[in-house]
C-alpha cells in the first residue's frame, strides 16, 4: 500500500489499480467462458457440456430439471457477479459513499420476493419429482410386462439376477420398451448404482432394499458407475446397461441360462469325479 501512494493524487479514487483489476476480472470471466466454450466446440466434446441423452421417461424428467435449474442458477451467478463488478466500477470517491439505508419495508419485501421464488421452486421440485416417480404412467405407455431384476452390489462389481434365476455380472441386459423394476441391495458395504441415461443413481445399502425403475426407449449400451466410495478398487466398479430388442433379450437369456447350467454341471461333474477319485484312492 505504501509503495503506491505516490501515484494516488492524480486520481480521485483511493486506489488507481482497482479499475484495472475490474477489467482483469471481466477479462478473466470472459476468458474462462471462452475456455469452456472451446471445450464444448470440439465436435467430439460437444456432448460433454450436457448430461448423457436420457433414454427413459424418468431420466428425461431428471435431465429437464437439471437443465432448467442450471439455466436459472447460471443466470443468478451471472447477475450476482455482474452486480459486484458494476458496484466496483461505479464506486464513489472516498468520503462520498451514498448512505443507503434499508427502509422499513425493504426487508419484508425482500423476504416476500425470495420466499415467493422459493415457493415456486418447491412446487417445481415436487412436480418434477412426482413426474419422474410416475411408474404407472411410464408402464402404461408401453405394452410389455414389467421385468423385475435384482441388482446386487458387492466389492467391486454388480450382479444382476433375472426373474428366471439367470444372473449376470457387470452387464445388465434388458429389452427395449419394457418397464424394468430394479431392486437394489448390497451384500457388503454401501454402493450406488448410477446410470445417468436411465434416471441416475440409487444407493445399495446392506440390510435395506432400494427400488428404481426405467423404461429404455432406445437400443444401445449405457455406461454407469458406482458413485458411493466403497474401498480400494472403487473406481473399477463400473456397469453397462445393454438395451436390446426383446427377441434378442430372450435369446440371450436362454443362452445365458444354458451357459450357467453347463458351467454348473461341469462343476458338479468335476466335484463328483474328484469325490470318486478320492474314494478310489482311499480304497
Amino acid at each position, binding site marked *: *500500500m*505504501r509503495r503506491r501512494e505516490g501515484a494516488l493524487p492524480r486520481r480521485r479514487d*483511493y*486506489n488507481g489499480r*482497482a479499475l484495472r*483489476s475490474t477489467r*482483469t476480472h471481466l477479462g478473466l470471466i470472459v476468458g*474462462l467462458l471462452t475456455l469452456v466454450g472451446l*471445450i464444448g466446440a470440439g465436435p467430439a466434446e460437444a456432448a460433454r457440456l*450436457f448430461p*448423457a441423452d436420457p433414454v427413459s421417461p*424418468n*431420466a428425461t424428467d*431428471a*435431465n429437464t430439471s*437439471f437443465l432448467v435449474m442450471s439455466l436459472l*442458477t447460471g443466470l*443468478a*451467478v451471472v447477475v*450476482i457477479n455482474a*452486480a*459486484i463488478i458494476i*458496484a*466496483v466500477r461505479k*464506486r464513489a470517491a*472516498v*468520503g462520498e*459513499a*451514498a*448512505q*443507503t*439505508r*434499508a427502509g422499513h419495508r425493504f426487508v419484508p419485501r425482500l423476504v416476500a420476493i*425470495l420466499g415467493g421464488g422459493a415457493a415456486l421452486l*418447491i412446487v417445481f*421440485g415436487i412436480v418434477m*419429482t412426482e413426474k419422474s*416417480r410416475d411408474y404407472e404412467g411410464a408402464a402404461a405407455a408401453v405394452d410389455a410386462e414389467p421385468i423385475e431384476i435384482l441388482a446386487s452390489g458387492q466389492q467391486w462389481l454388480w450382479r444382476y439376477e433375472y426373474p428366471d434365476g439367470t444372473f449376470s455380472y457387470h452387464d445388465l441386459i434388458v429389452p427395449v420398451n419394457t418397464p424394468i423394476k430394479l431392486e437394489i441391495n448390497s451384500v457388503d458395504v*454401501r454402493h450406488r448404482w448410477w446410470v*445417468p441415461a436411465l*434416471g*441416475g*443413481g*440409487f*444407493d445399495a*445399502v*446392506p*440390510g*435395506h*432394499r*432400494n427400488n428404481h425403475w426405467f423404461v429404455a426407449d432406445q437400443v444401445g449400451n449405457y455406461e454407469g458407475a458406482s*458413485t*458411493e*466410495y466403497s*474401498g*480400494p*478398487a*472403487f*473406481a473399477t466398479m*463400473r456397469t453397462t446397461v445393454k438395451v436390446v430388442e426383446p427377441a434378442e433379450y430372450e435369446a440371450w437369456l436362454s443362452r445365458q441360462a444354458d451357459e450357467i447350467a453347463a458351467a454348473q454341471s461341469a462343476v458338479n461333474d468335476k466335484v463328483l469325479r474328484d469325490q470318486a477319485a478320492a474314494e478310489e484312492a482311499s480304497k
Partner: protein
Amino acid sequence: MTPPPASAEAARPELISAGIPAPRSAWIVRATSPDHKAVGSMFIAAALIFALLAVTELFFMRVQLLVPDATLLRPEIFDRFMTAFGVTSVLLFALPLAAGLMTYIVPLQIGARGSALPRLGQLSFWLYLFGGATLYLGFLWRPSEAGVTALAPLSDDLYSANHGVDLWIAGVALVTLGLICFAVNMLVTLRTRSGPGMAPSRLPLFAVAAKTVSRLLLVIGPVMLAALTMLMIDRNFDGIFFNPDEQGSPLLYSHLSWIFFTGAYIAIVISFFGAISEIVATFSGKPQFAHRATATAFSAIAVLGVAAWMQNMYSAPMPIGFSYFAMVCAIALIVPFGIVLVNWLKTLSGGSIRITTPMLFALGAISVATFGLLGELNQSIIPVSWLVGGTATSAGDTAYALIGSAVFGGLAALYYWLPKLTGRTAGEGIGRASFWALFVGVHLMILPSELAGFDGMPANVYKFFGDTGLSGLNALSSLGALVFCIGLVASIANLARGAVAGVTAGPDPWGANTLEWFAASPPLPHNFDLVPDVRGTEPLREIRDAVRRAEAARPATVTAGPAPSTGSAAEPVAKPTDPPAPPQPVESAPVEPAPPGASEDGGERAGDQPPVA
C-alpha cells in the same frame, strides 16, 4: 508483565530477582497462556499448517488424475490421501480457522478484556491439535482408507480391519470435543463479557456469526460424538449399531454423520460470511445495509441448513417424504442466503469501494461461493440429485462453496485482521497476485470436473478410464489445481512473512468501524485500557464523530496529532505506517477519548455526510 514490588526503593536488585521466576521463552509463554489472543493465534497457525497438508494431498490426488489409467499412486495410497484430505480441509483447516479468528477477534469486538472461560478456550485448542495429530499419527502405520465421512459399514472392522479408522474416530472425536469447548466459551463470553452498551442487536456481524456457529456446534457436535462412539463400539466390541446382520442399520450412521458434516459445512459458510460482511462494509465506507436482517438470516441459515441434512441422502432407501422435507428446507435457504447477498450488494453499491487485498478476497469469496451455493440449490431438486449425486459435479459444488467461504473468505479475514493480530500488514503485491492465481485456479479446477461429473466421473475415484473420454476435462482440472495450490501456498507464505516482517500498521489501518480497531495493534494483554460505551453497531465511527465535534467546538489550539482534514478526497483513509497510538484513558466521558484511528483517517468518513437517498 510482572508488577514491580510495592517497596521498590527499599529492595536491592538481587533481592528483587530472587523472588521472580526466571523468564520463559516467548513461545512457551504464548503456548501456555490461556489468553484468548494467544489461543486464537495458535488456532490460526495450526489451521494454516493443516491447510498446507491439505494442499499437498490435493496436489497428489490431482496429479494422479492428470492422465487416464494413472498408476502413480496405488489405490490404497490415493484413498488415504482422499480420506485425510476431507477431514483436514473441513475439520482441521476451515472450522478451526474460523474458531481461531473468533477466539481472537470476537472478545475485542464486544469490548471484553478477555474470554469468560479462558482455560476452556485453551483446552479447545489443545483438543483440536491433539485430534489432528491423532489423525495424522495413522500415517506412521496405516491411516484410515474408509472415505471422507467413514460411512458404515465400510468403516466397520469387517471391511477396514486396521487401526487407522480407530485413529480417525479418536481424532475426529477430539476435534469435535475441542469445537464444543470453543462454542461454550464463545457463548459464555458473549453473554457475560460484552462491554457497556454492547446489546445483542449491536453485535458486529462477525460476533453474530460466532454466536450462531457456536450454537450450531453445540447441536451438531454431540450428534457426531454419538455416531463416533457407536462406530467405535461396533468396531472393537462386536457392536450392533450399524451392522445389518445384527438388526443394525447403516442408514443410522448416514443420518448422524450427515447432520454433523452438513452442520459443519453450514458453520464454515456462516463464519466466513460474517467476516465478509465486516470487510465489505469497511471497504465500502458505508454501514452494513440491514444489519439486523443479516444477523437474523445467519440464524435462519443455521436452522434450515442443518434441517436439510437429508439432502445428501435422496438416493438412499427411505420414504420419499423424508426427501421432500429435506428439499423444502434446502430450497427455503434461498431466503436467508438471498438476504445476506442482497445486503452485501446494497452495502457495496454507491460505496466508496477501496480494492485492497482483503476486499479483493472478500469480493472473490462472494463470487466463488455463489457458484457453489447455487449449485447446491440446483441439487436440492430431488431428480437432479439422483442424476448427479455422488459424482464430481456434486463434489464440485460443495468444493466451490467451501473454497469460496473458507479459502477466499478465510484469506480475506486473515489479510483484514493480520494488522490487528501482529501489528503488521501483509504485502499487497503478492496478496493480489495470489488472489488471481486462486481465482483462476479454482474455476479451472472445478468447472471442468463438474462437466466431467455428469458424463461419468464419480467423486473420490483413484483413477478414471481412458475410454470414458474424460481425459481433457481432467487434465484441465489438474492444471487448475496446480495453479490453485501455488496461489494458496503463496498467500499463506505472504501472510507469514507479513506477520514477522510486514509494514507496521496502526491500530486502525483500514478505517473500520468495529471495536477491535479501538485496541492497539497487537492488542494489550488486557485488550483495552478503557472500554468505550457502545451506542450502535458502529462504535468507532461514533467515537470519530464525537472527537471531530469536540475538536470543532474547541477554539483553534494545538491538538495532539494531525488535525482531521476535511474534504481532501485524494488522501488515503488508512496510513498503515503511522505508529500505534495507545488509547487515552479518560474516565469521565467514555465517548470523548481520541481513538487511535480517529486522528489519521482523514476526517472524511462517510458518517458525517448528510444521508443521500
